[in-house]
Each structure stands twice: as structure tokens, then as C-alpha cells.
């Protein structure tokens, strides 16, 4: 760091040390009360951790056997989206990132990029087809839906409609103070669209939305850009929940956890 940067850093340090904080509450007292109220909680919690660890170890052991891995399906079809799975490899289990949640089936991670990087991110301003919600409703060949949960979510701040062999509506909720920063994106894709014909995510887990099979994945997907290209890109470093309903394929992109994403997905309702 050169002298100028060092001086800048020193001013930053001095400013940070003057940060005014709210008074620190009596956390010690509250913690004491909580621990006194639940004396058995610790033992139960440890038992749950041990049980989950044993299950994970058993599962990892099973997946380390090539024959077991080879039995995993080669693609997953959710509505218009076909998610390509990797061919079985002899990769040691310890380096094969497999996601698992009790009650759901883990899948191997494709042998694509070893870890997600922001290099495939695209800015909202580079997306083709920005329009209004009213125009999107008219253009779509199906009934657009919006999440009813969380109640304070409101209407999307930016809306795009792209033609991908069928309408793909992209509804974007942005940060309140930055309309270029997407926080939650809902893609609604018409039947027959090729928008997701080939998708090879960084990670993948099977789950359910409204009792139907769904995918919880991380990775890029096809988008029409303002430069005229159609490219495999994404708008958020996070996960995408993919499911279908009445022939329409939905993709919810966010950095939320799976349970929150499912809650939002299951709250979809037609726009009044």
C-alpha cells in the first residue's frame, strides 16, 4: 500500500473508531435466564448434531461407491428446464461437494467451475426487454403471479420481458436504496421456451414446492442481453429455486436459504 493509501486507511480507521453505537443491552442476564430455563437443551442439541453427523457420514460413504453414484439420474427436468448432471467420476468423496438436507435427495455437483465466482454476474442495466408490470401482464401468454410472502415485499421494482421461444418475464425486487442491486428475482417462463433447455449448475439439491418436485441450484442460465447476445449469466450470487406449476416454469433467484425460498414460492398468487 503506498503512502497515499496508507493515509486514507488511517483516516478510515480513525473514523470507524468514532462510530456511535446503541447502548449494549444486558445480554449476560438474558443468556443466564435462557440457559436456566432449558437445562436439558444442550444435551438434546448435541444428540441432534451427532445424529445428523452420522447420517451425513453414511450418505457420504454410500456416494463414495462408484456404482451408487452411477445410479444417480443424469438429468433433472423441471418444467421447461432440463438440468444436466455430471457423469459419474472417481473423484474422492471428500472433494465432491454434495448438499444434503434431511428428507431430500442429494445430488453430485457437476464438474464445471469448482466454485461459484461472480465472474458470470450481469448487471440489471445490461438485460434486454425492460418494461412495466402492466405491459408484462399483457405480453405474457400466461397469468403472471407475484409472491404474497413476505407481506411487505410489494410489487417488483423492475420488470423485463424476454422472448426465448416463449415469454420469459423477469420480475426484480431491488434494494430500496439502489435500483441496480437485485435482491430477489422471479422468472416466469412460458411452456415450450428454450430458456432453460440446458442448465448445468454449480450445485444442486432436490426439494419440493407445493408437493411437486423442485430443484435448489446455484449457477448461471440463459439471458438476453442489451448487446444482442444470449449468454449464460446470473444476477445474484446465491441460489435459484426451480419449480413448475400449471405448465409455467418458475425460477426464484436470491441469496435466501431454502426454507425462505420455498415459503415465497408457495405464496405465489395471480396479480390482482
Amino acid at each position, binding site marked *: *500500500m503506498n503512502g497515499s*493509501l496508507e493515509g*486514507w*486507511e488511517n*483516516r*478510515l*480507521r*480513525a*473514523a*470507524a*473508531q*468514532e*462510530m*456511535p*453505537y*446503541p*447502548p*449494549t*443491552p444486558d*445480554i*449476560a*442476564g*438474558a*443468556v*443466564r435466564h*435462557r*440457559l*436456566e430455563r432449558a437445562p436439558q*437443551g*444442550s444435551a438434546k*442439541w*448435541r444428540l441432534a448434531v451427532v445424529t445428523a453427523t452420522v447420517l451425513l457420514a453414511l450418505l457420504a460413504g454410500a456416494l463414495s461407491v462408484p456404482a451408487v453414484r452411477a445410479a444417480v439420474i443424469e438429468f433433472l427436468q423441471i418444467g421447461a428446464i432440463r438440468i444436466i448432471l455430471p457423469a459419474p467420476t472417481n473423484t474422492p468423496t471428500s472433494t465432491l461437494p454434495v448438499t444434503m438436507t434431511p428428507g431430500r435427495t442429494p445430488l453430485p455437483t457437476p464438474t464445471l467451475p469448482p466454485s461459484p465466482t461472480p465472474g458470470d454476474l450481469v448487471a440489471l442495466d445490461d438485460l434486454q426487454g425492460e418494461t412495466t408490470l402492466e405491459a408484462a401482464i399483457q405480453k405474457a401468454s400466461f397469468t403472471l403471479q407475484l409472491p404474497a410472502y*413476505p407481506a*411487505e*415485499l410489494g410489487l417488483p421494482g423492475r420488470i423485463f420481458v424476454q422472448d426465448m421461444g416463449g415469454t420469459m418475464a423477469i420480475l426484480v425486487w431491488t*434494494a*430500496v*436504496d*439502489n435500483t441496480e442491486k437485485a*435482491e*430477489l428475482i422471479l422468472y416466469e417462463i412460458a411452456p415450450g421456451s428454450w430458456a432453460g433447455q440446458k442448465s448445468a449448475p454449480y450445485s444442486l439439491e432436490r426439494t419440493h414446492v407445493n408437493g411437486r418436485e423442485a430443484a435448489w441450484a446455484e449457477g448461471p442460465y440463459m439471458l438476453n442481453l442489451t448487446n444482442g447476445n444470449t449468454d449464460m449469466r446470473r444476477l445474484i450470487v446465491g441460489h435459484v429455486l426451480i419449480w413448475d406449476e400449471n405448465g409455467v416454469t418458475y425460477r426464484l433467484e*436470491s*441469496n*435466501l*436459504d431454502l426454507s*425462505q425460498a420455498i415459503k*415465497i414460492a408457495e405464496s405465489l398468487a395471480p396479480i390482482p
Partner: protein
Amino acid sequence: MELSGESARGAAQPPEPPQASADLILRARQGDGAAWEALVRQYQQPAFRLAYLMLGDPDEAEDVAQEAFVRAFQALDRFDVSRPLLPWLLRIAANLAHNRRRSIGRFFGAIQRLARDEPRLVSGETNGHEQRWQARTLWEAVKRLGQGDQQIIYLRYFLEMSVDETAQAMDIAPGTVKSRLHRALGRLRKVIDRDYPELREFWT
């Protein structure tokens, strides 16, 4: 939002006396609630402040700090008593705060409360408290960065953790702290240059 007016300077944690903490930890492991309470009291301020910086809401920060100490107590068997306790506690608090932020309802709620309670600060509108104005404006700028950048800046500059402590709190190598910090500061400087000219001019 009422603030105590107490800044980090002068309230920084004294160096942890390792043996005293180790004794308290060993007693807490054996179920001595008073020992754990003494440790919570010693470290509740930095845990609360880190959660507040990450969440922007004192009630949320209190919940997270409280939960962090409860979970740490439950996991004490796994803690290496030869290491300082504070970075480990801050790692737990940061993880919980991060998860809390990802809960969209709470996150949006906090942002809305922040926007409502704390309109953007303007230089000279803080009764002459230039230093606090700088700190709050700096915090606004840091919040524009990614989660990892925010965390490393909060630990190093706002909570005045050493490189080693920051490394332990983030579970990364000290060398990685330095390189990540360098990149985070570069991004912060760009944000300030672009969006906070009043701060940029003040620091020029």
C-alpha cells in the same frame, strides 16, 4: 434511534487474560453458569456491536448476540481453550447475523426502519460532531459492499481486532486477511469516491 454516544475508542476490549478466560471456560464446561455469565459480560459489547453493524437494528443485534452466547455455551466442548475466546464468539455472532440478514422479511424491515429513522446524513448537520458524522457516513458506505468485505472491515477497523484475531474470527489465514482487506478497501474507496463525495472531500 437513540445512541449511547459511546464510540469504539475508549471502549475497546482490554487484551484477554488467557489464563483467567481459560479457567472460566473450563468451569463453564462443567456447568458453572456464573463462569459463563462472567465471560458473556466480558464480551457482550463487541458481539452486540458486530451484530449491530451487520444488521443495522439494535433489537435484531441483541437477539443475535444473545443467541450467539447460548450456542457458544452449547458448543464449548469443541472450543480450544488455548486460543482466545473473542474471535470464536464473533465468528458465531457473524454467522448468525448473516443468516438473519438472509431472512428477507427481517432484512427488508431493518432497511425500512433504517431509512425511516436515519435519513442520509449531511455534513454539518450533526451539531458539529464531525467525527461521528464521518463514522456514520463511512458505515453507510461499507454497507454497500459485499458481505465478506463488510465483515472484514467491521472486525479490523470498527472493532479494532488484530490481523490474527480477524483471521480467527473469519476462519481464514492471516495472510488471507491482508489480501482480502486490501481488496475490500479498494472497493470501499471506489464506493466513497462515487457515492459519498462529501466524505471523499473530507478525507482528501
